């Protein structure tokens, strides 16, 4: 084993973003490796950072970008643009000259083309997918030897390889790094160029490479050294020289007009025919500060600033009222919660809070008697606590297990009959008729089919049980989690009923269902975490400890867990048998309020959902069971901002389900520890999601997963488009667009915080990840000290008063 080569591989792979399997979809910034550098340097072959010129001009036409936004964007990006100039007798500002230029100068966005797949890529994709095959009907022989060794053993018998290559393979060393070293020598790669060469080769098959990196960290059955070992030995055997991936230049400026042409055009549009050479020259001097290559990002900035202005203006400044609410609802920071919270708050004495959807309780969860576990926690954490269920009625639990076994027997027998070699023929003949009937039912009557299915196979979720928080956590851990949660979300007074609603999405035939579930729960529904959190808050021991730390939960306050189904918008109360008799009425009231809110919210969502109509909410709900539906819901499409602060800032404001809302009260967090946690965990996760949507929308062919309609799943690992090729990254087109139109507006996350500016500044300067994001313009941060203070914008040089444009729509 060669440590130096391993280190070189690790260095070459440093910028590669690990990609999670599709069954536990974690949104990532596909260009996260570029975060330590300015946003605009992230462009590369097949990677567009902005929309097209036409899209921005169309936005300007409909008032989505106004001149004030362009001026603000220019002021930010080109600080030396100032002063006045006179052209043909007309006085104009330099900024307005630059604005005119932006509207007239032509540019083309980077071509976001799919790089052509070589034979080597197809060959490697085939072998890697066969090796990682998650549910193999025929497991790869020699798999236990590791990827390189197994391939080396098998490739000797591969008749598709030329005999000379097979002989070369047979003589390879057994260790991947030794083989890689041999291949690098053979290819004549100089020692100082090794890392660069490896990095260039890792640009091919980015989907598989990203998954291999994830797998090496989390599972360990394959790593990039063995992948590169196969790749380079084949290249050496075939005599292929390593080449960087082909792709056009990142900015196609051939069509860009010369500076003089731009100056002349702008000058004439101001001064008409009276314009002389000196006028054009002075305009040209202004325009030289803002070359055409910078235009796309200035447009994008203006596009984002306009949204920020409207958002900041919408945010109000009312003070907190001190009366005790009757009902408090805590939901995930997910933008979809915003719609529900807004509609629930129509009732005056209801308060809502936003908090990460795992409610601060990271667990590995197993249902009662179940064989599998779920890691229900943010991707930033590792699972250390194992939570399971304890049934209240053991006889019922036994019956449930017996039913489960019978069902397992049926599943396994059809699977075995289908996956053998001799049996599928008769199986098709016998069960084809039944399948046909199922197909008809699923297509024509999805809701009826779902009801039938549910009555035949009752879900494991209906068993009355309690979650085993006492086994999973010590008292100290429970109390610490509860305290952190209270301080982070800033609940000052507890209502008699506090509902903690996690969320999950129900859809059928949807490989990306996990992308619609709770990201804070590792792409899983958040019910288990909500149940655990409610149980912790109801625990008298925990309350006693909290009391000693200055947090008093009144004895008449009861916490209930619930789950928000983001397709149907129903919030179902969980563990109903645990509701004390004194609170049954309150729970009933909550359900009534929630039903009304859900009805309103479904109709509101139907306006944006492709093919839906506000007049038929039932059909929107039916999408949860419809196997033909590729738009079960819009997920987090449209997400654009995150607001950290008390709900009073935004209560009553329609944020259009586009904003992550994290509750925060400065009073409860004097040291800023809770704010630091919010800014380094939920904020970063929101940024991942935001960039995942951003790049999937702008680069559907390379950084997005493309259309769902040709997706071909590799078990639960990921999808291919078509029969072979690279694993697709990112979100499918159906998450961001319809036809050739985007419904997700790609905007980098705008963060608004209401907290002392010094505290925020201290937190940013302490955390490299935040400095990277903010200083390099991956996200923007605007903050104010309190509800009465002015908004300030974070810049690497300190806080400046945020320009809030006041015109436009």
């Amino acid at each position, binding site marked *: 084993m*060669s440590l130096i080569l391993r280190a*070189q591989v690790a260095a070459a792979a440093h910028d590669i973003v690990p990609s999670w399997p599709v069954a536990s979809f974690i949104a990532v910034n596909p260009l996260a490796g570029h975060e330590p550098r300015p946003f605009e340097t992230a462009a590369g072959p097949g990677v567009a950072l902005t929309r097209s010129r036409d899209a921005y001009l169309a936005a300007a036409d409909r008032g989505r970008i106004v001149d004030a936004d362009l001026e603000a964007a220019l002021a930010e990006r080109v600080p030396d643009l100032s002063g006045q100039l006179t052209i043909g007798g007309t006085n104009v500002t330099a900024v307005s000259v630059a604005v005119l230029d932006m509207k007239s100068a032509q540019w083309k966005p980077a071509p976001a083309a799919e790089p*052509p797949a070589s034979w080597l890529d197809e060959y490697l994709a085939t072998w890697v997918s*066969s090796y990682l*095959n998650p549910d193999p*009907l*025929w497991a*790869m022989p020699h798999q236990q030897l590791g990827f390189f060794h197994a391939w080396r053993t098998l*490739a000797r018998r591969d*008749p*598709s*390889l*030329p005999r*000379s*290559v097979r002989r070369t393979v047979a*003589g390879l*060393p057994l*260790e991947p790094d030794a*083989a890689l070293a041999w291949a690098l020598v053979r290819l004549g790669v100089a*020692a100082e160029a*090794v890392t660069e060469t490896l990095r260039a080769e890792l640009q091919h098959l980015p989907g598989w490479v990203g998954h291999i990196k994830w797998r090496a960290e989390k599972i360990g059955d394959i790593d990039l050294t063995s992948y590169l070992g196969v790749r380079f030995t084949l290249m050496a055997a075939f005599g292929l020289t390593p080449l960087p991936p082909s792709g056009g230049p990142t900015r196609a400026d051939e069509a860009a007009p010369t500076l003089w042409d731009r100056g002349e055009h702008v000058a004439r549009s101001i001064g008409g025919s009276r314009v002389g050479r000196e006028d054009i020259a002075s305009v040209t001097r202004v325009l030289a500060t803002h070359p055409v290559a910078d235009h796309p990002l200035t447009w994008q900035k203006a596009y984002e600033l306009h949204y920020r202005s409207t958002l900041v203006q919408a945010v109000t400044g009312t003070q907190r009222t001190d009366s005790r609410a009757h009902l408090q609802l805590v939901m995930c920071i997910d933008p979809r919660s915003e719609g529900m919270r807004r509609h629930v708050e129509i009732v005056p004495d209801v308060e809502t809070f936003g908090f990460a959807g795992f409610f601060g309780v990271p667990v590995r969860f197993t*249902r009662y008697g*179940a*064989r*599998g*576990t779920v890691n229900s926690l943010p991707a930033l954490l590792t699972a250390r606590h194992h939570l399971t269920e304890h049934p209240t009625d053991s006889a019922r639990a036994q019956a449930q297990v*017996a039913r*489960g076994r*019978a*069902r397992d*027997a049926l*599943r396994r*027998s*059809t699977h*075995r*009959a289908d996956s053998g*070699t*001799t*049996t599928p023929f*008769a199986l*098709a*003949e*016998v069960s*084809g008729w039944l399948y046909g009937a199922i197909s008809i039912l699923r*297509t024509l009557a999805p809701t009826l089919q779902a009801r039938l299915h549910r009555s035949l196979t009752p*879900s494991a979720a209906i068993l009355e049980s309690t979650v085993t928080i006492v086994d999973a956590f010590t008292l100290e851990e429970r109390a610490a989690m509860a305290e952190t949660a209270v301080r982070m979300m800033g609940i000052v007074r507890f209502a008699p009923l506090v509902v903690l609603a996690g969320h999950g999405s129900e859809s059928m035939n949807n*490989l990306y269902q*996990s992308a619609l579930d709770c990201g804070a729960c590792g792409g899983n529904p958040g019910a288990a975490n909500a149940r655990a959190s409610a149980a912790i808050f109801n625990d008298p021991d925990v309350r006693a400890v909290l009391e000693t730390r200055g947090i008093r939960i009144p004895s008449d306050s009861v916490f209930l867990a619930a789950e928000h189904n983001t397709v149907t918008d129903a919030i179902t109360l969980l563990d109903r048998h645990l509701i004390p008799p004194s609170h049954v009425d309150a729970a009933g009231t909550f359900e009534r309020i929630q039903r009304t809110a859900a009805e309103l919210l479904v109709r509101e969502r139907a306006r944006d959902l*492709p093919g839906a109509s506000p007049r038929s909410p039932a059909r929107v709900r039916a999408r949860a069971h419809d*196997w033909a539906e*590729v738009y079960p819901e819009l997920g987090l499409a449209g997400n654009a901002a995150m607001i950290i602060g008390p709900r009073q800032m935004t209560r009553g404001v329609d944020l259009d389900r586009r904003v992550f809302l994290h509750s925060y009260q400065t009073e409860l967090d004097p040291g800023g520890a809770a704010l630091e946690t919010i800014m380094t965990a939920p904020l970063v996760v929101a940024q991942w999601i935001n960039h995942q949507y951003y790049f999937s929308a702008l680069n559907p062919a390379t950084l997005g997963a493309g259309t769902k*309609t*040709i*997706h*071909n*799943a590799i078990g639960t690992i990921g999808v291919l*488009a*078509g*029969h*072979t090729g690279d694993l697709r990254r990112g979100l499918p087109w159906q998450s961001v667009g319809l036809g050739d139109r985007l419904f997700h507006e790609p905007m980098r996350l705008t963060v608004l915080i209401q907290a002392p500016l010094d505290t925020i500044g201290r937190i940013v300067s302490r955390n490299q990840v935040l400095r990277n994001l903010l200083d390099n313009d991956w996200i923007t941060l605007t903050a104010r000290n309190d509800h009465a203070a002015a908004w300030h914008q974070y810049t690497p040089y300190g806080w400046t008063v945020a320009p809030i444009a006041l015109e436009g729509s």
Partner: protein
Amino acid sequence: MYDWLVVSGVTLTPWIAGFCSAIAGRVGMSGDRAARVAASVVGAGFVVTVAVAIAATAGARQPARVEFGSTYLHLDALALLMSMLVLGLSALIQIFAIRYLRGDLRQVWFVSAANLLTGFTVSMACAGSVALFAVAWIGAGAALVLLLATYRPLTQAREGIRRTGSRFVIADTAFLVPVVILLVVAGGDIPLDQLGAVTEALPAPLQLAGAVLLVAAALARSSQIPFQGWLPFTLAAPTPVSALMHAGVVNAGAILLIRFAPAIAPHQSVMIGVFLAGAVTLVYASAVRLVRPDVKGRLVFSTMAQMGFMIMACGLGAFAAAIFHLVAHSLFKSTLFLGAGMGVRQHAVDRDLPARRPHSPLALAVAVSLSVLVSLAALAAAKWMFSPTVSTASVGLLVFVALTAAVALGTALSTDFSSRTLLTGAASIVMLAFGYVALLQVFTVALEPATPLDAAPAWLLAVPAAGLIAVQLLSRNPRQLAHLRDAVYTRSVTTALPRPPVRPRTPVRPRPSVTTGVPS
């Protein structure tokens, strides 16, 4: 008049639907509306066909037919059955695709091409004469290629078009040679029921050559060896296309073999060739399917294997069994294709199932013997009750059923050895066995050919059976036969790969000195 109404009601709806959607695309109507109209029209066609089929079964009148000289369309049992299947599946898949392809820029293209394909397929099923069949056959092939062009900008889609198109052109040209010779000899179109008489007039070598060329077209359409290399490349078309291919497109090989049986079936050597092509494809595709990691890849190779089974049945002369398999499998596989995105959800559901318990060897032995006994008894009883006449081929095919029932019941019992599983399992096996044999008998009565056959002998079934069992054993990764196992596995993995780049002249030998350490 009645015949005209009935035949046009059955055959014309897809053409109307396709025409409407093409017009809608031209005038810029939304794809959604075009898809809805087309699906409703084809759905209506399906309802009409079912009504006609019921009327035909109830009344004892002649099959409806419409003649244009010696060219004609007729609705015999096979035509009605296939029309019901094709129109029903097409309508269902089009309804599915209304939502599945919502907003897709190629939706209108899909709807138009899908209806073109459906129209040609129904015409082919109802064709009563050679020339009409040939036109519909070639039209269906062309329409399939158009349908594969739904996502033409994708490299993989273009590759699929190229591979499919080239194989169809070769095989359909081969098909046209005997058809043209026959038409010239007869001096006009030939009704299919007079095909035997016309063929017999030809010299014997020409008869044989003609039969071989006809078979080639059937093999290519059903993706059989040596024309197998196109089906896996069709996955760059949207999922509904893969499902629609099971509505009388990829399984049209059997229809051709049955319709042209008078020209093919008298030659036992050709029938054995058909059988062997099916058998070899069956074993090959079963092996590849086992190593594929992707769900649609498995489905595609499973289809190929199932088509091998169907072609094999044709070679045995068991035409009714082949059609029975065709219909059941098309329902089976189109459902699996449309639901190809269920894997993640299924995984989440399975996670909550109870952990499996190990079972004692005694329980296992009891489970195995019980399952074998129950399956055999149920099938024998059903066979005795519904179709006491026994042919070797049908017994041979029933062995597959018995084996499957035994495996299914045995697996269920070894997973959960309880009286509940035993009772429900045994009851289902008995019910399914009776239903299966009864339904197969219905097909046999309705479809048994009148032409004399010289089919492949039934003992040949031992060949694919041995191949399948060998593959099954190899897939368990035994310690023995490691070389054979590795070779079969590797060949199966790399079967769909393109050719490697230019060959190097001499092997490059790794130098032993660099087996450790970094390059310097």
